[in-house]
C-alpha cells in the first residue's frame, strides 16, 4: 500500500509575524521557514505505519511525500525524506495558492500515484484555513477522517478516532481514504544526521500545475492584511483581595 503524505512550507511556528506597511500581506523576508507542524505529524504517522508494516507484516510499503509550493520547498521535502519518506514530489508554484487550488493539484498527483491512504495536516499555521484535506476528499470522492488522534489500518478499512468539540468520535472509512492530523496523533521524531545525508540521494520529482493540467484560478481575493487591534497590557495587582475588588468595581464582570 502506498501512503501519500502532503506537506506545506510555512513560517516557523516560533516566528512572530509582522504585517507589511502597505497592508499587502505579512513580511516574509528573511523569516525562518519550516514544515507546517501538523504536516510533520502527517509525515510521522506515515512513517510509523510503514515501520509497523515492516515489523508486523502490514500493508504500508511506500511513502511518497508531496508539497505544493515554491522551489525552496525542496528543503521541507528533504526533511520529510530524512524522516523516512521514500521519495518526494514538488508541484512548483511561485504564487500563493488557495486551498481549493492545492486540493486540485493534490488530486492530480493522487490520480498519478494511486495511493491508498493520504495524510495531511488539519490546518496550516499561516492561512489557518483547515480546508485542504476535506477538499481533496470531495474531489476524489473518498472518505475523510479529519482531526485524527488515532489511525488504525485494518484490511480494506481505516479506523480513525477524531478530536471533536465534545470529545472524541471514531469512524471507519473504506480505503482509499483521506486523513487529516490533529496535535495528539503522535510526536514527530527528529531526523538523524545519517538519515539527513541519505535523504539527499532520495528521488525528488518536480512537476508544474501546467504539466498536471490543473487551473489554479481562485474565487477568493485578499484585499488587505492588517495588524489586529492591539490589546494594551493592564496592571499588576498585589493581592487576591485587590483583584476581586477591581473585578467587582472597575471591570464589573463578577
Amino acid at each position, binding site marked *: 500500500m502506498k501512503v501519500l503524505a502532503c506537506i506545506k512550507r510555512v513560517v516557523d511556528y516560533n516566528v512572530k509575524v509582522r504585517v507589511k506597511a502597505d497592508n499587502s500581506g505579512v513580511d516574509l523576508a528573511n523569516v525562518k521557514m519550516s514544515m507546517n507542524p501538523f504536516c510533520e505529524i502527517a509525515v510521522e504517522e506515515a512513517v510509523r505505519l510503514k515501520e509497523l508494516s515492516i515489523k508486523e507484516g502490514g500493508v504500508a510499503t511506500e511513502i511518497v511525500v508531496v508539497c505544493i509550493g515554491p522551489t525552496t520547498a525542496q528543503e521541507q521535502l528533504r526533511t520529510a525524506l530524512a524522516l523516512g519518506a521514500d521519495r518526494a514530489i514538488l508541484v512548483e508554484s511561485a504564487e500563493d495558492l488557495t486551498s481549493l487550488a492545492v486540493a486540485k493539484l493534490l488530486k492530480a498527483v493522487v490520480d498519478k500515484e494511486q495511493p491508498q491512504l493520504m495524510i495531511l495536516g*488539519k490546518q496550516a499555521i499561516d492561512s489557518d484555513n483547515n*480546508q485542504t484535506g476535506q477538499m481533496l476528499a470531495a474531489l476524489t470522492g473518498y*472518505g*475523510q477522517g479529519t482531526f485524527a488522534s488515532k489511525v488504525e489500518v485494518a484490511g480494506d478499512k481505516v479506523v480513525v478516532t477524531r478530536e471533536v468539540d465534545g470529545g472524541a468520535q471514531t469512524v*471507519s472509512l473504506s480505503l482509499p*481514504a483521506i486523513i487529516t492530523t490533529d496535535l495528539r496523533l503522535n510526536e514527530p521524531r527528529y531526523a538523524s544526521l545519517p538519515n539527513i545525508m541519505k535523504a539527499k540521494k532520495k528521488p525528488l520529482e518536480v512537476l508544474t500545475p501546467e504539466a498536471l493540467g490543473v487551473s489554479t484560478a481562485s474565487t477568493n481575493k485578499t484585499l488587505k492584511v492588517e495588524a489586529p487591534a492591539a490589546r494594551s497590557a*493592564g496592571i499588576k*495587582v498585589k493581592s*487576591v483581595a485587590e483583584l476581586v475588588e477591581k*473585578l467587582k468595581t472597575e471591570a464589573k464582570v463578577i
Partner: protein
Amino acid sequence: MTILVIAEHDGKTLAPATLNTVAAAAKIGGDINVLVAGQGIGAVAEAAANIAGVAKILVADNAAYAHQLPENVAPLVAELAAGYSHILAAATSNGKNILPRVAAQLDVDQISEIISVISADTFTRPIYAGNAIATVQSTAPVKVITVRATGFDPVAAQGGSAAVEALAAVHDAGTSSFVSEELAKSDRPELTAAKIVVSGGRGMQNGDNFKYLYSLADKLGAGVGASRAAVDAGFVPNDMQVGQTGKIVAPQLYIAVGISGAIQHLAGMKDSKVIVAINKDEEAPIFQVADYGLVADLFEAVPELEQAV
C-alpha cells in the same frame, strides 16, 4: 439573496453557535433558511424554527445523516446550493469537517472563520493565529463560509416562526460509517458559550490539581479550559483546549491560571472582554495581554480567590 445556514446540533439539541451563525447571515442580509440534517431531529428542527429572523427550516431526517458524516451531508448541501447566494456554518469541528467538502464539490473557494461582514461579498478573518487580519472578497456564485461564533452576538433563540419543509433527498456515499463516540460529560457551562472561563496551564502540574479550578469555576458559574501544554501533558482531555487549533472563546472574564501565554493559546482567548492572569513567573507573556495580573503561587491564590468571590 437567500442564505442557507447549516444548523449545529448533536441530534438532540440545537447548539448556541447556530445563533451566532444566523447573526452573521443577518449581517449579510437577505432571507435566511436553516438546514437541519441528522436522524430523529424533530426537536432540533423545532428549536431552529423558533430562531428570530429565520424564514424557513429544511429538515433532512434520514439514517444516512445520523452523526452528520461529511461524505453524506456534503452532497446534500451541495445539491441545495443552487438556490442560495451564501452557505454558512459555524466554525465548529462539525462545520469545519463538512463545509470545505461542500465548497470543493461546488468548485468554489471557502472563506474560513470570518469574524466580521464588510459587505455581502467581503469579510474579515484572522490568519497567522490571529496575528494578522485579512479582508477577503469572494467572487463565487455561492459563497461558502464558516463563522467564528465569538465574532457575532447571537440572535434571539425565540420569537421566530419559520415554515418547516422536509427534504426527501438521501445521499449515502457508503464510504464511511460511524463507530462510536466518547463525549465529555460536564455540568459546567460549555466553554464557547460560558460568560466566565477559568483555564489552567502547565503550571497546574497535574490533572488532579485542576480540582482547584473546577471548584473556583463552580462558584463563578464558569466553564473550565486548558492550554495546549496542559492537554499535551495529559492533565485534561482535548475538548478543554483553548487556542489557535482548539476552541476559540471570548467570555466576559477569562482567568488564566499557570498559563505562560504562548501565541497559539492567546489566539484562542485574546478577544475576551477582561483577562486575568495568575502566574508566579512575572515575565510570563500572558501578562502582556492581561488586564489584571497577579504574580503569585496559584495553589495559594486560587483557593483564596474562591473564598473571596
